[in-house]
């Protein structure tokens, strides 16, 4: 199930004869530093011989900085803006139904990436085309596919899920998970991270939720695509492993770095390549961003952390080795 973006977008594999033209200026707006997604984005353009000059701005998880980026973009006037993640993108382009559109960038094409749910986040009214000067890609893997992948690994009857109810993505994902579990006849135990104080939930809140969840003895724990959960995955996975409960993750990082057992994910690198393909459509093929559909990858990676598997003595069925990508690293 390894995704090869070059193959997928093979229709545009011929190099573009733009080598001698002035390079395109692309402004990369990042939220938490460079990820694999940007690597994929830049390498894809490079492999297609598209001359690009990058202007890179990193908000470092500071929402305040985004305002400055918008002003800077208005002055620098790049040919295209690449924006990472839901939070940042929403701040740059605003919701599609905003009455006052002046605080947002409307006159520079924007390609967003790693947005779990562009419709739910009100970036676009529908995925077929934004109708705005905007398009992008999502790393979302359809929930039924994720749950099937989980069952293929191990047949379970009780699944736990932990999430931050403040994040719209998470709420949406949990809704989908409920539906999928109903179909698969799996009992779902939900454990939202409840804050004791206002503002962001803290680690103590998280510990509480984790303990409550483990007390109900789920057979596996699902980690949705949730910024708070991803950032604090270690704090969930370690106690869970001690209770011999593996974690199944919707995103790559918890499996690669934090010891989650497995997950069906879109690799950030591949999603980045897909975003670059959209950028080429806008810059080289001169397509209107408003007409370009917002898409997810249709092939995903099945990641298995064998270190965790060995630790638990829970080996995946041999058939999964046909396509699985094996991660064999201890938690960082």
């Amino acid at each position: 199930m390894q995704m090869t973006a070059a193959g997928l977008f093979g229709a545009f594999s011929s190099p573009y004869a733009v080598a001698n033209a002035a390079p395109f200026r692309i402004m990369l707006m990042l939220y938490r530093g460079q990820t694999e997604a940007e690597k994929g984005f830049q390498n894809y353009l490079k492999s297609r011989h598209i001359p690009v000059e990058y202007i890179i701005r990193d908000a470092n998880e500071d929402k305040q900085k985004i305002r400055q980026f918008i002003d800077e973009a208005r002055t620098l006037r790049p040919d295209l803006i690449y924006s990472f993640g839901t939070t940042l993108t929403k701040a740059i382009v605003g919701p599609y139904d905003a009455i006052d559109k002046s605080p947002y960038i409307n006159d520079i094409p924007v390609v967003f990436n790693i947005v779990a749910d562009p419709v739910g986040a009100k970036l676009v009214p529908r995925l077929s085309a934004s109708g705005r000067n905007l398009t992008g890609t999502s790393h979302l893997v359809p929930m039924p596919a994720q749950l099937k992948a989980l069952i293929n690994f191990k047949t379970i009857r009780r699944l736990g899920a932990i999430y931050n109810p403040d994040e719209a993505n998470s709420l949406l994902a949990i809704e989908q998970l409920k539906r999928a579990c109903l179909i698969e006849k799996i009992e779902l135990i939900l454990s939202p991270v409840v804050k004791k104080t206002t503002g962001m939930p803290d680690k103590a809140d998280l510990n509480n939720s984790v303990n409550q969840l483990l007390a109900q003895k789920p057979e596996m724990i699902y980690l949705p695509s949730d910024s708070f959960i991803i950032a604090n995955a270690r704090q969930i996975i370690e106690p869970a492993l001690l209770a011999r409960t593996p974690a199944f993750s919707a995103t790559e990082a918890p499996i690669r770095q934090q010891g989650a057992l497995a997950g069906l994910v879109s690799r950030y690198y591949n999603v980045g390549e897909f975003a670059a393909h959209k950028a080429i459509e806008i810059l080289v093929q001169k397509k209107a961003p408003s007409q370009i559909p917002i898409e997810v990858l249709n092939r995903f990676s099945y990641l298995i952390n064998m270190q965790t598997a060995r630790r638990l003595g829970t080996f995946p069925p041999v058939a999964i080795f046909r396509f699985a990508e094996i991660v064999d690293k201890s938690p960082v």
Partner: protein
Amino acid sequence: MNKLQNRLILLSTSLVAGAAIMLSWFALGHFERELPPAMAKTVAVVGQSTAKVIESAYAAGVPPESLVGANDYLDTVRKDNPGLDYLAIASPQGTTLHRSDNQNANRPPLPINWAAPDQSLVSTQRLGTYFDTTTPLRAEGQVVATLHLGQRASIVESKVKELSYDVLTVLIVATLIAMELLRFVLAVSVQGPSSLLHDFLHRARQGDFRHYLPLGNAVGVGRLNAPLNHWQNLINERAHQIWQRLRARGEAGADDKIPAIAGFQFHAPQASVILRDSAIDYVRWPFFLLIFSESLSLSFFPLYVEQFFSPEWGVPRELVIGLPISIFMFVWALSMPWAGLWGDRVGHRRAFMVGAIITCAGLLLTAATQTIFDLVLWRCMTAFGYGLVFVTAQSYIANNTPPSQRTKGMAIFLASFFAGSLSGAAIGGILSDRIGYPLTFVTSALLSAGTALFAARFLHSAPPSAQNAKRKLGSADFKALLRNPKFVVITFLAAIPAKIALTGFLYYSAPLYLKFLGNNQSATGRAMMAYGLVIVGMSPSIARLADRFGHQRWFVAVGGYVAAASMFLIHFRDDAVGVALAITFLGIAHSIGVSPQLALVSEFCQDVVKEVGLGTATGIFRLIERLGNVLGPMIAGILIAKFGFKGAFYGIGILCLVCATLFSAYFQMSAYKERHRTAGP
């Protein structure tokens, strides 16, 4: 001479057949040895990909004995590869760790312990009723387990069986061809020259020194021709000198001709006569070869036509497929009277050559067919050439056999026809499975061209003889014959149904149905060969029997009933064997019922035959009979379109049954009347 020749042919043919059988035997043994590795190759990819998955699980830290869901995985692989009967993973010690096999299979259980694996290679060995392909699973250079893939040995065995059928077919055909070829070679090198030599010496003994031996094809005994001619020439020269001397002395007559001297006859200078031999064996081989080449397409012709069918025409598919066969038969039948007349005018050699060349061109163009319309055109052309050759060979044999042996001559002619036809059908089937339809047609065309060369080299045109010149078939003759009820009954109730069964069932439906049942062309050709084999093997003895018994009409009636019965065989056995049996029984039916038909005409229709002449009556009988050839595919096509294959077989069977019943009823009644009349006042 003839006996010696027959013995020689028998001896050489059995030697050829024996050698071929030995060779085939060894080849099959070799095939059986070489097949398992070849079979292993077919599962090698499955083996490798399965091994890779297990090896990557091992690399990820899952040892073979701890594999989760291995049986399910092996089950999936087995279901995806129907050729595999079992899969098993064994430890290096040979203990079965995981397995997937067909629980319902009727066979001994799989071993619990396997032979220790070969450390290095994928290998295949026989394991009871299986071929077991062992793939070692490696990690870091160590064999950590073995993967076993099992293929049912019977798959291999059925392939060997299929191949041995092909080999057997080729053997039969090769024997037939060897016989024909030997007969021809002997005729050219021994029989022909020695009978000429005999003739030459006989004339010399009578004192006739005017004749010379031919020098063209001086092979074998013919090598004596040159020295004999030399002496003959010397004798004539001497005689001429003597005669001149006599004339100078005034003792010879005033005319210029060399008279007989003391009862001896000599020729004038440059007025020699070359003796010619016209053995029927000379035409037999080229005729056989042409029939063989034309019959190569018998087993697949309806399928070839089917490719050009388009449903847009709104005509039933089966009717369209039958049409080219019908039209071929029609042109063939119609061309023959005309071709016979033309052939008598230009001589056998030329007529045969022209016929073979037209056939060759027709076959080449058939190979290059684009649409059904040009296909029909090329088939007409082929039919025309084929008709010309057919009638020329027939007339050559008739012209070169004394009247007393004419029946035997015709028997030889028919034997050649069926031998060529059955050999062609069988070989054509095997050939088309391997090189495809168009190339098989090209092969046919090349063989036809070869036939033309043989005819050019070995046939020579006898001067047209008034005695054998054919009369044009006049409408008065038709009327006279068709007014005779017995002639009509024999033709329409016996001859035509037989031909309808021949073309409608054997040439048209059988190939389509055998293909429909999933057989290849080789199997179809083999099944069709049965008809010719039965005819060649049975019809001479049945003809003798009929001659001895005399009651020809019973033979014809029984033939009709057997033909009808053969069409219903499919009811009891609806598979390739059933069709082959039906074909065999049709062959038996026609062996019994077809050759006495003509005798019946001359026996029962004496008055009208006398009126139009036997030759004309025979010609008209054959012409009308061939109407059945034309009708056969069309009737079968309509029946298949309406009632399916089985319905068509039953339909033809009912037709044969009704005709045979009416036929016997008529003759029974007329015999009764006859008796009544003679017994009455």
